[in-house]
């Protein structure tokens, strides 16, 4: 099953669904053949696409809209906030190449403030699946939830088989007393590597795949805060993303924790192909483990698959 197959299946089963794109067809190349006029390409007009999605939603449709993450969240921000957020319309934002996934495109295409922007909109829900398996497990509930949703689309394949998705709940992969790593999106696959290395160094390691950034699983964060060190790992600016969410949750519950944030602090990342980007920015599994440990190990970093899309 692919993203496009799942979306086709959903739209064929429920004719409220319409599929829209601002001429970003990488994920939906073949869907027109199945949906006909329920596939709407507005051209390179992210703002108009969102406004039109609102009009379609007023008529009872559930538009699943596609655009590059940076243009969907930033060029069209006010349309998302005003035309989807204020009226609480079920517009489903499929955000293409968010975070490090924009690899060689450069800073214009780097959506690394998207979580921050989208979760700031009342009524909006925000999700970041770890890989294709996670994505496909999460989407049916997200698409059928009666509010606007933002999804960091991630179709990368990993070996990991995820637990069924519970709306608003994190996936707790392991609990540990020395360190607990919280992450979301494509860095999941690197944290999987990091956990192995940390365990080989003798640590008791917890690992949480956040999945849903809004609503957020507060209990998962509070539980993680019981370990000696809590680490947030994200391809997002330090401000407004998971690190901020953790701080908000801890403050709200008057809890405290020692937190090490691994994020992009006041900087865009160096554009290159994804494996090189991760290495340059210190986000390979081995580097994540060593940044937590504070020393180098003899661990060997597994090969990181290149991006399948190059749009």
């Amino acid at each position, binding site marked *: 099953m692919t993203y496009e197959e799942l979306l086709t299946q959903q739209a064929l089963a429920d004719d409220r669904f319409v599929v829209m794109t601002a001429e970003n067809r990488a994920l939906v190349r073949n869907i027109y053949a199945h949906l006909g006029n329920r596939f*709407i390409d507005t051209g390179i007009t992210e703002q108009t696409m969102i406004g039109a999605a609102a009009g379609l939603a007023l008529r009872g449709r559930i538009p699943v809209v596609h655009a590059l993450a940076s243009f969907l969240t930033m060029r069209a921000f006010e349309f998302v906030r005003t035309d989807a957020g204020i009226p609480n319309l079920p517009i489903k934002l499929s955000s293409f190449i968010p975070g490090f996934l924009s690899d060689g495109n450069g800073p214009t295409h780097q959506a690394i403030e998207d979580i921050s922007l989208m979760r700031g909109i009342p009524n909006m829900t925000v999700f970041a699946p770890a890989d294709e398996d996670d994505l496909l497990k999460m989407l049916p509930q997200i698409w059928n939830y009666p509010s606007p949703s933002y999804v960091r689309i991630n179709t990368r394949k990993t070996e990991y088989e995820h637990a069924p998705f519970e709306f608003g709940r994190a996936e707790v992969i392991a609990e540990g007393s020395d360190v607990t790593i919280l992450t979301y999106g494509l860095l999941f696959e690197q944290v999987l590597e990091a956990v192995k290395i940390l365990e080989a160094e003798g640590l008791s390691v917890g690992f949480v795949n956040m999945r849903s950034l809004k609503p957020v699983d507060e209990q998962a964060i509070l539980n993680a805060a019981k370990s000696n060190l809590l680490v947030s790992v994200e391809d997002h600016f330090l401000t407004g993303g998971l690190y901020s969410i953790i701080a908000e949750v801890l403050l709200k519950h008057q809890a405290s924790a020692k937190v090490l944030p691994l994020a992009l602090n006041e900087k865009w990342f160096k554009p290159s192909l994804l494996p090189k980007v991760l290495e340059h920015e210190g986000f390979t599994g081995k580097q994540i483990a060593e940044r937590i440990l504070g020393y180098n190990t003899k661990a060997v970093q597994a090969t990181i698959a290149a991006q399948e899309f190059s749009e």
Partner: protein
Amino acid sequence: MSIQTTAIDKQQLQATALKVREHIIRMATDGGCFVGASLSAADLILYLYSEWLNVNKSNLADPNRDYLFLSKGHDVPALYGTFVELGLMDPERLKNHLSIDDHIYWHPNTKIPGIEFHSGSLGHLPSVAIGVALDIKIRGGKNRVVCILGDGELNEGTCWEAMLVANAYQLDNMIFVVDRNQFQANMPTEDLIPLEPLHDKFAAFGAAVKRIDGHDFDALHEAFSAYPFHPGKVNVVIADTVRGRGLPSIERRADRWFCNFTATEIDSLLKELHGEHQTQLTSETLVVR
């Protein structure tokens, strides 16, 4: 499909338009409202609801109704006044203008039955309207979608983006109406961001365009009776209007866009509306933005 031109009662419309303008003027105190832009759009809004749109108190949730989107937004007092005169809104409710206990404020919102979508941020509703028009096309419906734009609003790029998309999808069930009152917030349009030749601009985007006197009910009726103007083409009506129409003391005055009149001025302006005299305005001129 062309609709048979039926006669309109022009005198009745003119009399009702005066009442709509009275409502607008009464809202322009205790906080005020965008009175100039409301007075320019009053006739065309009244015409559309009274004579053309399939919208009435009993069909507001009917998917086969026509839709009107007020994109410029700050002309909403003209819509409130029209709703009251056509029985869509309780006249008592207008007294709640700007009340914290009601939802009647400077821009439209869907808490008022009959208002299809909120606006206030310019350049949004052309795209929302084409989403509705697209859905009607997909379902094979015959209902029509009107979107009223301000001329100043046409500075926003998304108006033109929407025209491109509407043309691409041949939305001949979509009618954009420009309230061409020649002013944007603080300036005559032609002195700041010139729009002319406006007819040619829309035509170049593929629209079928009519330009008429937006205060002449016969001209409005003739234009809208010709819907659809051209199969497969988006309809555009450029309605030439006067900002502040009906009150010579504020007509075409850049500094009388948003007005917060004194009670004495309101009394005087209501008389001025009926041609009694011109008002000596003493309230502060307000330039918002």
